């Protein structure tokens, strides 16, 4: 798989805003950014209210995904370009989710909304309405999704990559520094996990680092490419960014995202937890 198969540049995006069969979708937790101006023609996907189950802690099921994409006017054969704020965290999460439900024709806008804005490219406040479709999703591909029992079994066996900041990893903080500190019952990390903050995979402008830089980064941090890998963070969005880097850009075969992440693991009764820098 090459980078062009999974990423588009902001320049490509601007040149393809009107291209038939290409749908842009902005994915965010806080959709006020979209409402204040979005890439012309892009539909809005609300991570919290549209991608998450409203009752259980899980994301929407296959039927819910079909209804969502149908309502957004996305067809099975459309090329979907996902982008968002927070350096594409939620867009990367949505990308993982599109793949999980079998939509292979999906790419990320490299650098996301930040790069688009830093480039000084136009934003549009107009309402976007696409005619509804009859979207059909596949059964979930759980080869890219890790659940808690598998994570506990992976301690000292598989690569566990904790992509949170060093202060969250060590147990000083329970959430990223720009968010209120609410989260799991306990702070720390899963024993044997490497701490490779997601941001190390990104440049300052939000674009992904080159394949060579990424390969060097994970090698230096101690990732054993011969073993399966599970990435986690706090709620599974930053780890989607790292899942994208490892699975989609570097092409490692067995990489899963643990979307339960620390808010689940750090509240489980009886599982081992490590604090400190882990080295």
């Amino acid at each position: 798989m090459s980078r062009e198969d999974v990423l588009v540049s902001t320049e490509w995006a601007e040149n393809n805003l009107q291209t038939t069969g290409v749908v842009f979708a902005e994915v965010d937790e806080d959709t006020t950014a979209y409402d204040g101006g979005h890439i012309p023609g892009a539909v809005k996907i609300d991570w919290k209210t549209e991608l998450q189950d409203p009752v259980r802690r899980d994301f929407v099921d296959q039927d819910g995904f079909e209804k969502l994409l149908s309502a957004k006017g996305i067809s099975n054969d459309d090329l979907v370009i996902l982008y968002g704020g927070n350096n594409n965290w939620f867009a990367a999460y949505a990308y993982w989710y599109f793949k999980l439900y079998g939509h292979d024709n999906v790419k990320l806008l490299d650098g996301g909304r930040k790069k688009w804005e830093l480039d000084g490219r136009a934003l549009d406040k107009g309402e976007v309405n696409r005619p509804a479709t009859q979207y059909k999703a596949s059964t979930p591909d759980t080869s890219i999704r890790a659940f808690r029992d598998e994570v506990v079994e992976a301690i000292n066996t598989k690569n566990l990559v904790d992509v949170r900041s060093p202060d969250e990893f060590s147990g000083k903080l329970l959430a990223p520094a720009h968010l209120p500190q609410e989260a799991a019952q306990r702070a720390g990390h899963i024993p044997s996990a490497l701490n490779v903050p997601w941001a190390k995979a990104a440049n300052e402008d939000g674009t992904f680092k080159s394949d060579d830089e990424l390969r060097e980064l994970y090698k230096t941090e101690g990732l054993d490419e011969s073993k399966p890998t599970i990435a986690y963070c706090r709620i599974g969005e930053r780890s989607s960014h790292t899942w994208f880097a490892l699975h989609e850009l570097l092409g490692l075969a067995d990489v899963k995202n643990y979307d339960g992440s620390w808010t689940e693991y750090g509240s489980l009764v009886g599982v081992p937890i490590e604090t400190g820098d882990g080295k």
Partner: protein
Amino acid sequence: MSDGCGAPVQTATPADIDTNGQVVLAGKTVGGAYVRLLNADGEFAGEVQASADGDFRFYAAPGTWTVRALHRTGNGEASVTAQGPGLHQVPIAVG
């Protein structure tokens, strides 16, 4: 929020922000800038987008931090050392 009609610049003060016992780094830069928090080793710790008025805020741990702002018109940064909980002001010029 300012209505942008020339009101004096408003800055958060300890009296009007509840730091809830945490280190809070707050400041002003150009509106809509992407503001990145870097630790003493230059490692990324967080990023927010400044409000239309240029306000931003981080919850952090005690220590020395660099706050870096990116905007289509230019970049800028400032450093701050927070020895304990409370509000720490970090203005950043961009250009």
